[in-house]
């Protein structure tokens, strides 16, 4: 029985959350530092996991398995494959930045009772989310996964609803109403998805008799467990629906703009860069492995939805007046790419999708956090309220531009690699879909550059004329992300090496081979 | 004569009682209707007991009476207290809580 590394990685932030919540009201700053240190420690653990993980080793590594609820056929089973490790690392990496970026977002405005501790709550909740996300990346037991997939909604819900944007901080009733609307919408949307998945989970148990991903996948593979076609399809749909809501896939996306618009920038990043990844990750891990046939059956429909997401999200991003909502719709477009890559059922597509999850996390974080800094300076989310910022705050503008260029996946920055892989992977099997999706890159350029032009260039608006440039803390948040974007853009090998084997085995799960090129290289 | 007829009677009484509960306003009367229903049950018990030729039914009838008596005790207490505080025994007046 070796040291339970994976459990520790998840448990550390959980404990940290409790500890942070327990910090007395007066010692606000202490809570912040505690949270930051915990997240850094988690990052350290994640790195250890990364190091201990052997890409060419067994499919699931660092596994742990303990009896839990025998009665439900549930075991406490953890294990990571390449995909899981990559996303785990991403999560652990982003949280410190999120915490650092949200340093002042939760300083109490109005004095409630002396026991009211928003700051502690804020950081505790972030850590709680981290713990749950991490464990859902590690879980190889469907039920275990489901539990945290659902449970993470609650802290997220409080983060969205409880800690509004400083843009409309204070007692502005309307803002408060919008905020709780967004929070409720987020929760109900995902809860409905989750509950429908619950039905499917139960169904899976009735069919399979246990929840162990490996066992079921094995049994499916060697045919000892055969589902009736319709059963499999229903179960698949049950699972997929929940993931599609979380991801989010058109037309189940409308909660995201509200949530990201109303939440503070760091929380918005938490939603789109971390939590939503669980959805796409789960498609790759659970939908494809548990229901390969049904997945193939549903592929055309899903691809169409994905393409719609890509174009639709981009077009709506163009039409937004609100910076954060714009980023939200951009994310919808990007999630379209990810899902398309997953269901293209080619190695390039799936590797690309996984890479995309990581890159999108980083790029959105960069863009959104800078946007957050911008918004916190001017106290408005409306694009129209800005102009000429580039002149007064060049560094801010520069980082914002880089974030934007990453969002439009400029070659040389990380997202390009993944986006191109997804496109090429899709094109290889579904040329038309691939070509339509390619229009997305033009639209991406459109909304990004329009955003940049309207906010950063042109004559300096009087309201922004006194705007300070990025402060040290903020620079500390953005700079590493930018570096990472460039590094992974020119040298993504470290990630792909981890991901490829996992993708290969996923491909074999769905019994799919890559299409051969028309003209064989004469070797 | 055929004990089945007693059953019909019992059913009839029961229905009358139930109808009374549904249409009468005065709590006391409603309550009496319920008693009527209970007694209809008793009649049924006795009749069945006669048909099966065992005594269970008759014994049950006695239990029922006792229970009915107990209900009377509790019920009247409640109804009276309601009446005293509202000066009305109409069940329709007692409708503070709704929706």
């Amino acid at each position: 029985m070796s040291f339970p590394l994976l459990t520790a990685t998840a448990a550390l932030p959980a404990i940290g959350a409790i500890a942070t919540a327990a910090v007395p009201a007066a010692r606000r700053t202490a809570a912040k530092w505690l949270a930051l240190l915990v997240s850094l420690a988690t990052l350290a653990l994640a790195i250890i996991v990364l190091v201990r993980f052997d890409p060419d080793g067994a499919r699931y590594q660092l596994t742990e398995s303990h009896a839990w609820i025998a009665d439900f056929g549930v075991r406490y089973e953890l294990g990571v494959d390449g995909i899981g490790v990559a996303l785990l690392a991403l999560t652990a990496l982003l949280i410190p930045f999120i915490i650092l970026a949200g340093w002042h977002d939760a300083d109490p405005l109005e004095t409630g009772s002396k026991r009211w501790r928003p700051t502690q709550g804020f950081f505790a909740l972030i850590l709680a989310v981290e713990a749950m996300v991490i464990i859902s990346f590690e879980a190889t037991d469907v039920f275990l996964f489901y539990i945290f997939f659902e449970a993470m909604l609650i802290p997220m819900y409080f983060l969205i609803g409880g800690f509004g944007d400083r843009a409309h901080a204070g007692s502005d009733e309307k803002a408060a109403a919008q905020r709780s609307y967004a929070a409720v919408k987020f929760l109900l949307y995902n809860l409905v998805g989750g509950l429908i998945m619950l039905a499917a989970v139960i169904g899976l148990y009735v069919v399979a008799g246990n929840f162990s991903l490996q066992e079921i996948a094995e049994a499916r593979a060697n045919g000892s467990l055969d589902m009736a076609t319709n059963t499999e399809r229903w179960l698949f749909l049950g699972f997929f629906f929940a993931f599609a809501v979380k991801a989010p896939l058109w037309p189940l996306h409308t909660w995201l703009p509200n949530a990201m618009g109303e939440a503070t920038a760091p929380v918005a990043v938490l939603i789109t860069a971390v939590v939503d990844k669980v959805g796409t990750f789960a498609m790759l891990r659970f939908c494809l492995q548990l229901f390969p046939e049904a997945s193939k059956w549903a592929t055309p429909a899903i691809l169409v939805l994905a393409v719609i997401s890509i174009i639709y999200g981009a077009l709506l991003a163009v039409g937004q007046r609100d910076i954060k909502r714009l980023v939200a719709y951009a994310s919808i477009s990007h999630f379209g790419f990810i899902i398309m890559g997953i269901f293209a059922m080619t190695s390039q597509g799936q590797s690309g999708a996984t890479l995309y999850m990581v890159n999108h996390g980083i790029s959105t974080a960069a863009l959104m956090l800078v946007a957050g800094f911008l918004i916190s300076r001017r106290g408005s989310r409306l694009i129209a309220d800005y102009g000429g910022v580039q002149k007064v705050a060049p560094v801010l503008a520069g980082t914002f531009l880089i974030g934007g260029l990453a969002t439009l996946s400029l070659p040389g920055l990380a997202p390009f690699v993944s986006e191109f892989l997804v496109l090429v992977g899709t094109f290889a099997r579904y040329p038309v879909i691939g070509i339509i999706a390619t229009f997305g890159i033009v639209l991406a350029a459109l909304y990004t550059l329009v955003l940049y032009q309207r906010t950063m260039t042109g004559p300096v608006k009087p309201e922004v004329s006194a705007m300070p440039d990025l402060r040290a803390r903020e620079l500390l948040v953005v700079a590493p992300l930018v570096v990472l974007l460039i590094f992974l853009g020119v040298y993504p090998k470290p990630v792909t090496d981890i991901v490829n084997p996992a993708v290969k085995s996923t491909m074999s799960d769905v019994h799919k081979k890559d299409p051969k090129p028309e003209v064989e290289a004469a070797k | 004569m055929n004990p089945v007829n007693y059953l019909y009677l019992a059913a009839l009484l029961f229905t009358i009682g139930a109808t009374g509960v549904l249409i009468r306003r005065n709590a006391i009367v409603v309550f009496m209707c319920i008693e009527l229903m209970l007694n209809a049950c008793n009649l049924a018990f006795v009749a069945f007991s006669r048909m099966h030729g065992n005594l269970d039914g008759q014994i049950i009838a006695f239990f029922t009476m006792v229970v009915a008596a107990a209900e009377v005790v509790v019920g009247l207490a409640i109804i009276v207290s309601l009446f005293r505080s509202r000066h009305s025994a109409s069940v329709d007046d007692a409708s503070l809580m709704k929706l």
Partner: protein
Amino acid sequence: MSAVAVHSLWTTAADPISKIDAPKIEYGQLSPTLIILGAAIIGVLVEAFVPRKSRYYAQLFVSVVALCAAFAAVVALASDGYATTKAGIAAMGAIAVDGPALFLQGTILLAGLVGLFTFAERRLDPETHGNRVDSFAAQAASVPGSDSEKAAVKAGFTTTEVFPLLLFAVAGMLIFPAANDLLTLFVALEVFSLPLYLLCALARRKRLMSQEAAVKYFLLGSFASAFTLFGIALLYGYAGSVSYGTIAKVVDGTITTVDPALVDTMGNDALLLIGAAMIVMGLLFKVGAVPFHMWTPDVYQGAPTPVTGFMAAATKVAAFGALLRLLYVVLPGLRWDWRPVMWAVAIVTMLGGAIVAITQTDIKRLLAYSSIAHAGFILAGVIATTPDGVSSVLFYLAAYSFVTIGAFAVVTLVRDAGGEATHLSKWAGLGRRSPLVAAVFAVFLLAFAGIPLTSGFAGKFAVFKAAAEGGAAPLVVVGVISSAIAAFFYIRVIVLMFFSEPRPEGPTVAVPSPLTMTAIGVGVAVTLVLGVAPQYFLDLANQAGVFVR
């Protein structure tokens, strides 16, 4: 009928009965019930003889001791194997001592104990004339607002009768799920109903509503029990016996001794079906299933909150226990007749409860409707008609009862000038004022909503799983849909507590005595334990999942 027949009847009746062998009572196996009943009677005596000042303490002492002793007895019996191997019928076939009975009795006793704590709480209301007061009327007999009431309050009267009443109710509830013949069933029903009727009428504040609740509960309750009784009569007529075992045999036609009278009644299925339906209806009334639910909101709202909590928890447990036994022991042969009907009932109950709850504005009514919805979920498990179904229901009941009592206990804490502030608008911003209470209540709400890592989720999962395995997949789908709807209004309350600005004239949160604290604490503990590590209790429920015939 012919004269001969009449004569024969007379003669048989007139025959001197040679000897009646004295009934054999297994006191040991009945001890839990007997202890409670005994304590209840002692309680009555206490009321009669102990000076008023010290009654409260005496009663509290007696009740606590009795409940603990009874629980100990239950545990002893269970560990002695009566839950599994030695399970049997006691008291001349009147009472079954088996797994479900003991499990539910244990649950009821614990619920009763926790409920008792909330009954005994006297720190919440401000002291009047230097006397600590609890949530019950100083003198139930005195007209609200009258001089006599004022006098009673001044004199510091308290209705300590609530304790014996509670005990009587508990006793009835103990028998109810264990009853092994219809007569016992009926008697037990009345034994626990009547005290509850009274308890509902005893609120200290808002007495008019309290009395109204009592009247409604009483009239409708006895109306329902009249139906039950008639149903019993019909079943008796059908099977010529009220003993579960015999009826079951007659129903599935495995009976050995058939006399001519039985032959022609047996042939008459109408008796059986109508009778069964009516009995089931009586039980559905008690669990508050649609369309027999309409008393629930009014009574829950009007009754003193501690009573509501106790009632909501324990009554459900007892009633579902009885329902299970009836359907699994008496009417298994009739499964194909009652299952579809129960399906319908379960569906309308789940949806109806959830939907109507959305627009409620009073926290107690809200919880009432949520309890209706939960009744629907449990019914889904009942319908499974598998051993899993039984154990899942048992588990659900155990989980649910503590959450409920805890939730209502929290409700008692939030007060303003007019007593408990039950209108939702008053709960706005509670999270800002007293985060801890709000957080605890949020935990309960999440458990109600069935969010993972709470007992609510484990229970819901168990029940739905059983239902799915029992071939009731559509029920599961309806179930998840209605829990989605239900989630909405639980969330609404949370939003209200945490995200809306506190009202300046908002309510205060009273600091309770250790009694209520224990009640709430137990609630939270059970909620989390059953949510995170339910295995042990599931095992218990599984062992307890078999009925004795």
